[in-house]
């Protein structure tokens, strides 16, 4: 049985090796999306949001490497069968979250939404799996995603609220009609 935003993965019969590969790909997808966002923000002259997304790349990369190491220790170089094409935006922020003028607060909110999505994914998946090792892994990852949400919420609390945006900054200057 598949889980939303995945394709061709049967969670009832998934093995620990495939589950580790899946979890690694989830982090890789998030890292790459943050990299795209950092590029978008740099292109659109928003260095503060770009800096935040660059930080997120490092964080997701650390998670990816840790999971990949764990997989290697347990299963060596056994060929992977889970592929990137099988997952869709599980922890990666959706493209629609980005805005050229987004504040750091809004960037953090996008990251928070992504951590919640990842939590929901593992929460749904853990209820489907039958393998005890996979269940433990998904439970552990679900807990981690919950912890990450806590970090983001704490970071958000440190930020002042965004100023009201009435769009006036984008209006053209008045043109004389005489």
């Amino acid at each position: 049985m598949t889980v939303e935003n995945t394709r061709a993965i049967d969670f009832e019969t998934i093995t620990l090796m495939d589950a580790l590969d899946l979890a690694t790909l989830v982090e890789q997808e998030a890292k790459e999306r943050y990299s795209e966002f950092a590029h978008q923000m740099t292109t659109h002259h928003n260095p503060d949001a770009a800096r935040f997304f660059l930080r997120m790349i490092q964080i997701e990369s650390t998670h990816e490497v840790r999971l990949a190491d764990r997989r290697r220790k347990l299963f060596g170089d056994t060929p992977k069968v889970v592929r990137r094409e099988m997952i869709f935006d599980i922890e990666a922020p959706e493209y629609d979250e980005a805005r050229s003028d987004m504040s750091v607060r809004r960037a953090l909110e996008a990251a928070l939404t992504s951590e919640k999505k990842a939590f929901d994914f593992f929460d749904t998946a853990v209820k489907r799996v039958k393998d005890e090792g996979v269940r433990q892994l998904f439970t552990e990852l679900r807990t981690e995603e919950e912890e990450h949400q806590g970090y983001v919420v704490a970071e958000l609390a440190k930020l002042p609220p965004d100023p009201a945006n009435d769009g006036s900054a984008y209006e053209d200057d008045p043109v004389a009609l005489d």
Partner: protein
Amino acid sequence: MNAVNTSPPVLPMAQAKDYKSELKPIWCPGCGDFGVLQAIYRSLAAIGRPPHEIAFVSGIGCSSRIPGYTTTYGFNSVHGRALPIAQGIKLANPDLLVLVAGGDGDGFSIGGGHVPHAIRRNTDLTYLVMDNQIYGLTKGQLSPTSPRGLKTVTSEYGSLEEPVNPLLYVLAYGAGFVAQATPADMPGMTEVVEAAIRYPGFSFVNIQSPCVTFGSEEVQVKAQRAQMKSLKSLNHDPTNRLAAMDLAQHYGHELHTGIFYQNPSPPPTLDSLVRERKAALSGKGVPRQKIFDLLLQKQ
């Protein structure tokens, strides 16, 4: 049973990243076209044809940048003229997989006259229209699919015109494959684009890809997610053309996603008919080098 189903042709070994060029998209952050591009990469990976066997043609507009973001052959052509160029490519080299991308203005305004002819010829190509109901690249003018009443820089008091209905338009001209998708449903969009490419003949996908800069909040991806209705969930039979036309009339009022119509008995494509004709005339035709001589003799 394997936990992970990797049996071809659903997911052969090509990878989405094989189709991603080094050029990074410069669309506005939040643009729907980012999701469309991801769906195209994944669909091409599922099809498995190598990039050098694919030609991607576009016109002019934000979405027409897409060929440059892929590793396939690409032709970012003239405004509204992507379809004739794509048909020419397919006729010249029928072995190529030919894709066409463009916006609603490119496809249904300046290029609108080309659509019926590509359909009636049934050239084997896939036409992906990123319908955002506005001219985004030129900063927000009315487009052929803008809804009546829309206020833009060229319709300060609201548009007085009815929009073109792209779905009904292509269905009426007899397109064999007609679908609609949105970046609000990435797996669904990928599935539909893949099915369109696999269809032997002219296939059309209208993608509701919102303009984040000139589109209102009500048309953005989050709003689409709340509104969209999958045709599968409505138990729509995609082989029923009249039912498809009935559903297509809701364009602009309801967001239906999935396959509206897929001809269960696809007619021969133009390129296959050309091959047949060539084979039939083989040996009977005038050699190419003699054609000019014959013309001179007749004068």
